[in-house]
């Protein structure tokens, strides 16, 4: 067993364990933290596969941004998780049954018999100065330009949808308009009324 393989198994075991804990721990904050751990180990495995850029992006985006957002939400909303777990035990047996059948089937399929590794030879190692990032960038702006654009479009739809769904302009809100306030003239506020003098009675 080479050192690389050893490292792989370490990270892989941690990842599977963490992933399992995400759905088994009771406290949502812990669950989120385990998810961070899962992402992190996944990034490490990608690193082993020489996919540096993706590994770094995974950490930056998911760990750095998405999970932090998650944690904020979980902590701020103080979700009562107990009701969510109702029926967990009730459905557990069925779930385990289905899950294990599926697991067995996949094991059956993905074993050596149907997926002989000689059919999938490992790619040749890249030279030391090979830049993962540069290659990705080149592909992204040439062969995958169309996909890149469509992905951008999807993000735009997401933004439009998010804003449309969350922004509420309430009709009864009162707010100041400084521009108008500054432009107020005397005539707008003050009315001089001429009256007849009144005689003392």
């Amino acid at each position: 067993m080479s050192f690389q393989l050893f490292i792989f198994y370490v990270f892989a075991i941690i990842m599977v364990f963490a992933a399992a804990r995400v759905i088994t721990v009771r406290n949502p904050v812990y669950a989120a933290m385990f998810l961070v751990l899962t992402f992190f180990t996944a990034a490490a495995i990608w690193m082993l596969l020489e996919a540096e850029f993706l590994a770094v992006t995974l950490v930056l985006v998911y760990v750095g941004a998405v999970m932090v957002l998650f944690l904020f939400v979980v902590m701020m909303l103080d979700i009562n998780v107990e009701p969510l777990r109702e029926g967990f035990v009730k459905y557990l047996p069925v779930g385990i049954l289905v899950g294990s059948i599926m697991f067995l089937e996949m094991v059956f399929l993905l074993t050596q018999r149907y997926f002989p590794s000689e059919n999938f030879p490992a790619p040749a190692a890249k030279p030391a100065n090979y830049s993962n990032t540069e290659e990705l960038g080149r592909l992204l702006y040439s062969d995958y330009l169309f996909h890149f654009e469509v992905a951008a479009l999807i993000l735009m739809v997401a933004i439009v949808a998010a804003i449309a769904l969350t922004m509420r302009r309430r009709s009864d809100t009162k707010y100041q308009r400084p521009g108008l306030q500054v432009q107020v003239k005397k005539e707008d506020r003050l009315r001089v009324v001429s009256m007849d003098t009144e005689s003392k009675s």
Partner: protein
Amino acid sequence: MKFIYTLIPLCPLFAAIAAGLFGKRLGRVMSHRVTIGGVAMSFLLSLIAFQQVVLSGNTFNESIYTWMVSGGIRFEVGFLVDRLTVLMMLVVTFVSLMVHIYTIGYMHDDDGYQRFFSYISLFTFSMLMLVMSNNFMQLFFGWEAVGTVSYLLIGFWYKRDTAIFANMKAFLVNRVGDFGFILGIAAVVMYTGSLDYEEVFVKAQPLIGQTMSIMGGFEWSVLTVICICLFIGAMGKSAQMPLHVWLPDSMEGPTPISALIHAATMVTAGIFMVARMSPLFELSETALSFILVIGALTAFLMGLIGIVQHDIKRVVAYSTLSQLGYMTVALGASAYSAAIFHLMTHAFFKALLFLAAGSVIIALHHEQDMRKMGGLRKYLPITYWTSLIGSLALIGFPGLSGFFSKDLIIEAVHESTLPGATLAYWAVLAGVFVTAFYSFRMFFLVFHGKSRMDEHTEEHCHEPPNVVTWPLIALAVPSVIIGFMTMGPIVFGQYFEGVIFVDDSHNVIERVREHTTGAMSMLSHVPGSKAFYLAMAGVFFAWFFYLVKPEWPAKIQSKLGFLHRILDKKYGFDEFNQTVFAAGSVGIGAGLWRFGDQGVIDGAVVNGSAQGIGKLAGLARLSQSGYLFHYAFAMIIGLLVMMSIFLFI
């Protein structure tokens, strides 16, 4: 030409759609202008078609549109425009045009003015589709379409119970005929594998001698079965005994449609169909004999009923039945060209008689009983003269169109050697006397003698407007001359060469040709003709009984009460149908309903399966719980099952 031929039926269709859907918006005047324009267009284009087909000799047979191909059978819309078709097209569009114009006057005060125009245009479209068809599917479409429109038209005044009864009756009786017709078409498809006329005719030849067993050990000739089934369809549409009962009742409809549908066009569809199928019918002498006998019975017996009718339109209706019988006899005797010739002349003079009757009815404010007419000659001169022409043509007065066609049929039957031909000959010969008698009975009762109208009616009695009288004149002209002009080419010439097939062994026209060569020689035979003397005798007796001794008919009636009753009851067909078929089927229906329907079908099959399905649906509905995780779970299970199925199978 394809375009022009397509346009011929489409013009009335579009006009019908315009008047039917946008009638209110178009208004009365625009509606009738649009529909009359459409039909006039068709007529003019038919003239072009005549020029193409008859004068230039370009027969057209192409499919216009393939709807679908299923199991090797093509369902198409296609036109076969040959000499027979062109003749029918001209007759249909011309009479339809006259009727359209006439309708302006007849329906003037009716609320359903636009609706009526839309219907008759739609009818014209259906009829043209029927005659122009080059395949059985389109023929059947046209067949059903004319039936449906005629149902709508007979029940046009849908608030009258009698009209509703009449259209229901027409519809049901025609269903019986259609049932035979569709069985015939099905047999054609089964044995030839095609719907196209040409192919069918070619493939029919090897069928001679082939038999099929329908029930038990009886072996039937395939062609005879096909022909008789098709003819049963024709019996329904062309009102032959015993499926004639709907036609007299259908006089409940407005008079213009009686002229259009029940005289000139729809009822002749059966005659046309048999002539069109002559290559099939010629192959089965049994079927021809059957047709001959049915036609002969209809021609004679229906004419007799005409003698005792009092309703002016019903007299004309029975006369139509009898004349259709003549045409059928001609078909049975293999004198197809004579049948079509009579069809054409009859279309003109019978439409004329109907429209003249309509004119009388308008003048008398919708009075149809002849006992309340009389002496109308001085009030309705145009109607009088045109009626006279029509009646003379009908009885076959020498020189007028009916003379040529009817005498020809009698001669042809005389020459026929098929079983039943002798009976048919005497029946049609006697029919001539009967025809002359009832025609002039009606004529004298209506126009001569003393007026039996009430004073109010008499005061307001005057000739109807021009839109009514012009079509009468326009129809009277061909009633006089068309026979003399066209007899030579149509019957004795080569007109139907290659269109109508007659087997040499029963080519009666050929035999007639041996002693008669054309219209002139026909006229020269008049002094020796039995038919002529019989017709004259009929007119004489009518004159004697109804003008000289008007009290005699009543006396004879009381003396020969039972005979009169038989005729008055129309041989009891209606009663028989009512008591046996209607009541019987109601009885059987009730029985079946109680035991079969309610018990077995409703109880077990329908309700049972409905309840079963309902319960099943209810159960299945439970799966739609609304819970997201149920749904997701169902998907996972689905995935699992799919995976297992395909991995392990």
